[in-house]
């Protein structure tokens, strides 16, 4: 054991009460940081899972044509300038879905893709009329590309598969319509055609904006109802690593000349809200750690005032300035280390406890208990913040101690 560490340990042992207050501060700060991050990211991850489960990592949508002629502009004096923007002309939907999907499937990062025809329609039950979004799906492909199977809360997918005029309703929409599995509902397309469908299942994604509007029917039936016999609105792409969706979307856009949107782009607004909440929680809770750091600053500063003679005698015995500094830095680091270990344990316990708290959330999304996300990054960040705060708090007193001139102290010590 190094001499500064040996002396630091002994100083701490004889200053237990004042050190304990700082230790409690660091422990609570680290624990609260971990717990709040687990909660905020828990909701964020739930939202991301919902987005991916409902609409995939990438949506390949409208075809476009780049208008190259727009890039060249005649300036003054006959100078021709080239603009960085490439104006596009968009054409609704994907007109040749089979060909597009063949290309998409060639990417190794793609697990599955599924064509969807989506449009507005009116839905009518015995109780009321509502506006909904009709999604025509290829059930087999949809089950591979989304979490539709897991989202079923009532009914039977095999019944839907064998029922050409079957419909799956979003849970909130079904509730509003008073429709249950086995009931008949009517769908009226914008063109005016009305057809009856039997409810084969209720679907809940957790995203209320989806669950209050969606009605799934078979793709062929949708194409017939909506008067679009060959086209689809978009293709859902499921990826092995959804984190790389922006890169795939850019590549697909370039390759297919179809607009391709990653889930990060589609959910950007909500993701930014989640991030803002997470950062805000981190800043607020970090204040506890900073206060504890300030406590350590005070403890060490008072200790140095109390120990000037000991510092002088240590210097006279051959302890270097760095040794003196290390004695006080070690004390801070030991408090940070103990606080981090205790804080991580307490943080894990609090996170687990919070995750068991029943909570009925209905609104932006649906959940029945507090959502938490277990991540080593939360623990690492909390420990880094704790050590940084304590290091800064310990550095200035320790530097002051190292700069003390022993002969000045000895001269003033009653000689």
């Amino acid at each position, binding site marked *: 054991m190094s*001499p500064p560490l040996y*002396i630091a340990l002994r100083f701490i042992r004889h200053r237990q009460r004042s050190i304990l207050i700082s230790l409690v501060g660091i422990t609570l700060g680290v624990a609260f940081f971990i717990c709040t991050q687990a909660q905020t990211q828990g909701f964020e991850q739930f939202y991301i899972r919902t987005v991916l489960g409902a609409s995939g990592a990438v949506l390949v949508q409208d075809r476009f044509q780049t208008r190259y002629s727009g890039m060249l502009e005649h300036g003054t004096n006959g100078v021709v300038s080239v603009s960085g923007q490439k104006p596009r002309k968009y054409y609704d939907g994907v007109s040749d879905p089979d060909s597009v999907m063949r290309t998409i499937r060639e990417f190794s990062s793609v697990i599955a893709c599924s064509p969807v025809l989506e449009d507005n329609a009116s839905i009518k039950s015995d109780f009321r009329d509502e506006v909904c979004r009709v999604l025509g799906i290829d059930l087999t492909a949809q089950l591979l590309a989304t979490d539709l199977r897991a989202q079923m809360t009532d009914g039977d997918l095999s019944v839907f598969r064998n029922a050409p005029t079957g419909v799956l309703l979003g849970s909130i929409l079904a509730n509003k319509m008073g429709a249950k599995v086995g009931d008949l509902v009517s769908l009226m397309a914008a063109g005016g055609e009305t057809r009856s469908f039997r409810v084969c299942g209720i679907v809940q994604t957790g995203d209320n904006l989806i669950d209050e509007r969606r009605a799934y029917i078979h793709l062929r039936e949708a194409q017939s109802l909506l008067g679009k016999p060959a086209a689809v609105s978009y293709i859902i792409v499921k990826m092995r690593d959804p984190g790389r969706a922006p890169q795939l979307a850019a590549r697909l856009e370039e390759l297919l000349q179809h607009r391709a949107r990653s889930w990060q782009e589609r959910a950007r607004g909500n993701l930014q809200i989640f991030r803002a909440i997470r950062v805000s929680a981190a800043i607020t809770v970090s204040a506890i750690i900073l206060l504890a750091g300030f406590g350590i600053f005070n403890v060490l500063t008072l200790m140095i005032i109390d120990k000037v003679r000991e510092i002088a005698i240590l210097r006279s015995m051959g302890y270097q300035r760095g*040794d003196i500094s290390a004695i006080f830095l070690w004390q801070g680091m030991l408090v940070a280390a103990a606080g981090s270990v205790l804080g991580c344990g307490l943080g894990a316990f609090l996170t687990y406890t919070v995750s068991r708290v029943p909570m009925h959330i209905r609104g932006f999304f649906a959940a029945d208990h507090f959502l938490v996300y277990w991540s080593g990054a939360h623990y690492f960040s909390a420990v880094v913040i704790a050590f940084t705060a304590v290091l800064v708090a310990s550095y200035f007193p320790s530097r002051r101690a190292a700069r003390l001139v022993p002969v000045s102290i*000895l001269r003033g010590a*009653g000689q």
Partner: protein
Amino acid sequence: MNLPLVCAGLERQLGENESRVRVLRGVSLEIPAGSVHAIVGPSGCGKSTLLYLLGLLDEPDGGQVWIGGRETSGLTDRELTDRRNELIGFVFQFHFLMHEFTAEENVMIPMRRQGRLGPGAMRARAGALLETVGLADKRARLSRHLSGGEQQRVAIARALANDPLIVLADEPTGNLDIANSERVFGLLTELVKREKKALVLATHNPLIAQASDWVHEMQDGAFTRTYSNLK
């Protein structure tokens, strides 16, 4: 032959601007091994300042200090600190023991910095030194639970911990009663002579001055008279 401690023409001024005072005026000394030198004089005559310069705790404005035959001027703070650890032991009027440590641990503190001995060897040496100063039975006692005389004896053992060439003592008995003063001084001189070290001490005590080998009378920053008590 290299003398353990030599200084020549030491000058030191303290204070700022108009209040600057010339504390030492060209002080020179030669201290052979196994000898005890007492510096006597009134308060403020420069005794402590001279000891701090000899102990490399302060830097002179002029003159040189040689320790173990090596000149010390121009050395960095790190080098001076290393020299103190290796070659010099200090005893102060107010012992300055560290209260969080036992008597034995206090004696081991300089050894830990030097890092030459393992834990067992350090403990054995500290025990031997405490036995020499008559505190073997109190080695495990926290220093704050020792009497003033005992604390000063621990400080002597600590000064000798790294087997220094020189022991510098600034009023080592100034805070002790007569019986303890005699005991502490007796111990210091006995150890210094037995181990062939050099002892320089500043004192107001005429009995201690008489018992020293050499006496240097000091006034206004300069030696006014030097004489030997050796017969």
